[in-house]
């Protein structure tokens, strides 16, 4: 295995006539925490969604552990099991209890025995402080609790990479912290993480590298200190002076 877990090569995505990604090439190292920032509509979400094939790239290639995932012969479900994703709107399953949300995929797709899956789910719930909600339905949870559930639902599949798309943008301010704490803890565990976020303080604190995506290209990338204190590109500068 190489040190590079994900690599994109000239990634292009069109929606009809609209070119949203205009050639993105980058490499993500195993265990790296990468924040993606940039103006709205710049293509951050689309980039993330191409990585787990929620969007099919129009052109270019994505390699996962040197395997081309745009290859038509790839088993997409198996691939997605290795890439966890957390959405802005949580997208927990309302028709299942908290525990069932977590054990669903391990039991069905990985054939983990039910008791084992549940024991692991309980351990995960304890890790994020939701053990007493195991048998509740999601409608009884707050936004922050739903998002923590969504995170452990993804972790239950033992992914090699976690993708976060603005995980705190739909939350009331008082719940942002509890979710960011969980993600921070995850960054310390050695997980490879890509996170699209508008929480600049958080990005600066946890990431190894920051990508600035604007108009479908990475216009600048670098260490958090470099990007946040001395951005080189005018668009980065403009964006940061607006949000900071």
């Amino acid at each position: 295995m190489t040190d590079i877990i994900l690599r994109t090569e000239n990634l292009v995505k069109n929606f009809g006539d609209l070119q949203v990604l205009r050639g993105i090439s980058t490499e993500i190292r195993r265990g790296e925490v990468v924040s993606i920032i940039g103006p709205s509509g710049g293509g951050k979400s689309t980039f993330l969604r191409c990585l787990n094939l929620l969007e099919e790239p129009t052109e270019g290639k994505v390699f996962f552990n040197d395997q081309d995932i745009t290859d038509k012969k790839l088993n997409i479900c198996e691939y997605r099991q290795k890439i966890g994703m957390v959405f802005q709107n949580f997208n927990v399953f309302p028709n299942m209890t908290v525990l069932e949300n977590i054990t669903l995929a391990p039991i069905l797709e990985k054939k983990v025995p039910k008791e084992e899956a549940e024991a692991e789910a309980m351990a995960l719930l304890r890790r994020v402080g939701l053990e007493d909600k195991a048998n509740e339905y999601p409608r009884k949870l707050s936004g922050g609790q739903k998002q923590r559930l969504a995170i452990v639902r993804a972790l239950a599949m033992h992914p090699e990479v976690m993708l976060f798309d603005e995980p705190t943008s739909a939350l009331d301010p008082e719940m942002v912290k509890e979710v960011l704490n969980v993600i921070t803890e995850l960054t310390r565990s050695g997980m490879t993480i890509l996170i699209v976020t508008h929480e600049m303080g958080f990005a600066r604190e946890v990431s190894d590298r920051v990508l600035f995506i604007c108009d479908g290209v990475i216009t600048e990338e670098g260490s958090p200190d470099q990007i946040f204190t001395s951005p080189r590109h005018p668009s980065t500068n403009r964006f940061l002076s607006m949000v900071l």
Partner: protein
Amino acid sequence: MDKIFGLLEKYYMVFLSGLWGTLWLSALTVIFGTVLGIIVAMGRMGKSKILKAITDVYIEILRGTPVLLQLYFVWIGLPKLIPFEWTDTQCILIALVINASAYISEIIRAGIGAVDKGQWEAAKSIGLSKVHTMTRVIMPQAIKNILPALCNEFITTVKGTSLASVFFVGELMTSYKTVAAATFLQLPSLTIAGVIYFVVNFVLSRLLRLLERRLTVSD
């Protein structure tokens, strides 16, 4: 009033068997219509462009022509197409099922379409297969939209089966015709049939409202 009670006393069995006919004809129509409707909806939502086009045309035709015309069409056409001793009731039932399938397939499609797009994405993102995504995540949520609409379709069907009287298939309107022809008391027998229809649908729509409340409570 006297005439109505007089009629009821003498002919209540005719009306009862008519009601029975209406109910089972409606029930079978909705049950088989649902089965066929699921197949049509699958074609409509599937990947194949050809199937999509075929089911599109199927639905458009059935929604764009009168039910009575469709009943005649099957009643005359079916025995020619498939030579077999089709009874009138069988022909009419098949026509009603085909008609209902068009509406029910749209109900199913709308019910599935109303499930949040994020649910599909979340299911995909944890690596669920297509079948499991559908059976474990999407359908359990879609059913809450589908069931009330399906009950509504049942009510519509109860009224729709009255057209079967044109072919003298045993149901409530046919009972009216039978009694009216025997007694020449058209208005009173029509009133009786009307009251029965109303009561049946009133009860059904109350049950439907109950069901809807139950479904929303569990959200």
